[in-house]
């Protein structure tokens, strides 16, 4: 028995290997910000299938990419898109219209209620939000019931239980103390609900660095830390770089062609950015450092 505190640092290949066929994963961030992309790309590369993908409370195109690459069986999120660049993700839209993926329809409030139920190991939590809407009609497990105390209607929101939470943050130490720049979006709720948490970070810092500002530690005791500079690319990483609009448009052009029947550009996109680069570093090389370094703008 050694007296050393164990490092939890893995590379993106080791981290993604924990994601198995049929699992339920939840992806952090918010629309164009803070997605753990090296792990997402590696999941696609290793060919994981039949995932239930819970996107962020508002997801960006990382969920769309997993659908397009054929990894997702079911998708749960109140939004998939890129705002003004794409009001809705092309693969998400097409797969939903064609019935190719299962969906669980919710809004952000109901989404967090479901995650809180999971964290507390409750079968459900009640909600006022959703009463009178179509959500109980389209989700058979979202049920209207009578409050046993006052007899008024309430919605029973079943727990959403992710196997693995995948998060991108600013820094962490090797032991799993994680700090964000900014709010951390809804990532705390993901960590609480999931059985395991893997966090990609811009920098792995010393434990002393974390101790300078313990109040900034938003997540502690995460299961794995992945060193991933520019790890949210093509999305923003607060305090480090902005999203890469040209890359997102390249993706969108390929995705829009694919859903119309021409999968060539999307296959080329996957080859160039996912299948050919052996590591995250090689991905960054494929994107090109002039582009990467141009994203640091305030």
């Amino acid at each position, binding site marked *: 028995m050694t007296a050393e505190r164990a490092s939890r640092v893995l590379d993106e290949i080791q981290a993604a290997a924990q994601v198995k066929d049929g699992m339920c994963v939840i992806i952090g961030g*918010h*629309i*164009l*910000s*803070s997605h753990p992309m090296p792990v997402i790309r590696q999941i696609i590369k290793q060919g994981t299938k039949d995932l239930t993908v819970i996107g962020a*409370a*508002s997801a960006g195109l990382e969920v769309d990419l997993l659908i397009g690459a054929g990894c997702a069986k079911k998708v749960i*999120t*109140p*939004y*998939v*898109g890129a*705002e*003004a660049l794409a*009001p*809705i993700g092309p693969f*998400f*839209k097409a797969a*939903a*219209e064609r*019935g190719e993926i299962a969906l669980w*329809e*919710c*809004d*952000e*409030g*109901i989404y*967090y*209620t479901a*995650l809180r139920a999971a964290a507390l190991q409750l079968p459900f939590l009640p*909600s*006022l*939000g*959703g*009463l*009178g*809407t*179509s*959500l109980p*009609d*389209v989700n058979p497990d979202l049920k209207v019931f009578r409050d046993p105390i006052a007899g*008024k*209607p*309430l919605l029973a929101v079943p727990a959403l239980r992710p196997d693995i939470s995948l998060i991108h943050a600013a820094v962490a130490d090797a032991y799993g103390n994680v700090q964000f*720049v*900014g*709010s*951390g*979006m*809804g990532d*705390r*709720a993901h960590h609480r609900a999931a059985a395991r948490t893997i966090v990609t970070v811009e920098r792995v810092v010393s434990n002393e660095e974390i101790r300078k500002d313990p109040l900034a530690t938003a997540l502690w005791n995460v299961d794995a830390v992945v060193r991933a500079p520019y790890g949210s690319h093509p999305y*923003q990483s*607060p*305090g480090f770089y*902005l*999203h890469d609009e040209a890359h997102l448009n390249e993706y969108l052009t390929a995705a829009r062609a694919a859903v119309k029947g021409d999968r060539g550009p999307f296959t080329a996109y996957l080859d160039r950015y996912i299948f050919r680069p052996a590591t995250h570093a090689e991905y960054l090389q494929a994107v090109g450092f002039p582009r990467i370094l141009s994203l640091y703008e*305030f």
Partner: protein
Amino acid sequence: MPDYTTAELIAAFLARDLHDGEFVVVGANLPVPRAGVLLAHLHHGPNMWIGLSATQTSLLKEPVLEPFKFNRDFRAAKWAESYMLHEEAFDSPKLMSDAFFVGGIQIDQYGNSNLIGVGKEYRRLAFRGPGAIGTTTVSTYTKRYYLYLNSHDPRVLVERCDFITSFGWGKGGADARQKLGLPGGGPKYCVTPLCVFDFEEREKRMRLKSVHPGVTVEDVLAKTGFTPIVPTRVPETEPPAADELAILRRRVNVEGVLRS
């Protein structure tokens, strides 16, 4: 030709309905409501709290409010007095927004809104919408909200939504929300590029409140997929005043999106 655009007219209309001291979140990808909120703040709301890019703040002393195109642009955090932890934002109406803007791929005559999709069968939608985002829960709790549309189209303003993601006044009646136990005040106005609808007090059905200058009642009826209540006299939406236009152009919308 008036010396203002329809976008500026709507921004001024929305601004006048927001009150000093209120907390209002500026949503994503909605330049006109954004301008309305910021105009209210700078024009008559020195004690308003502004939510933007997952922060809360006051922008009273900022000379120019540069726009951020995307919801989570972290550059907006330079103004932050506090951060919004997103998972906590739904824990209390105090953290949501006193007033809110809800869009829709369909909105019906009772102010119910649909962001799921168009089609009779959920598993075979003719058109998949973006999803409910935060609208279901915030419209449940917020003191009042505004239905906001970028285009006035009979395929959007429909008799009945195919699906409902935000419950407005259901099938009508002033007690529709109370019967379900929904605490918020419900939709107050529906604002379009042609007109403003309010909700008749008893039935809670849409009623033409004003038409924008240059628009006729007939124009509105021809482009609305249901028959709203039309009073005998329908006034024009009040144009923006000179001091409102000055704030909009010099501080809120310097880049000119509202003028294009």
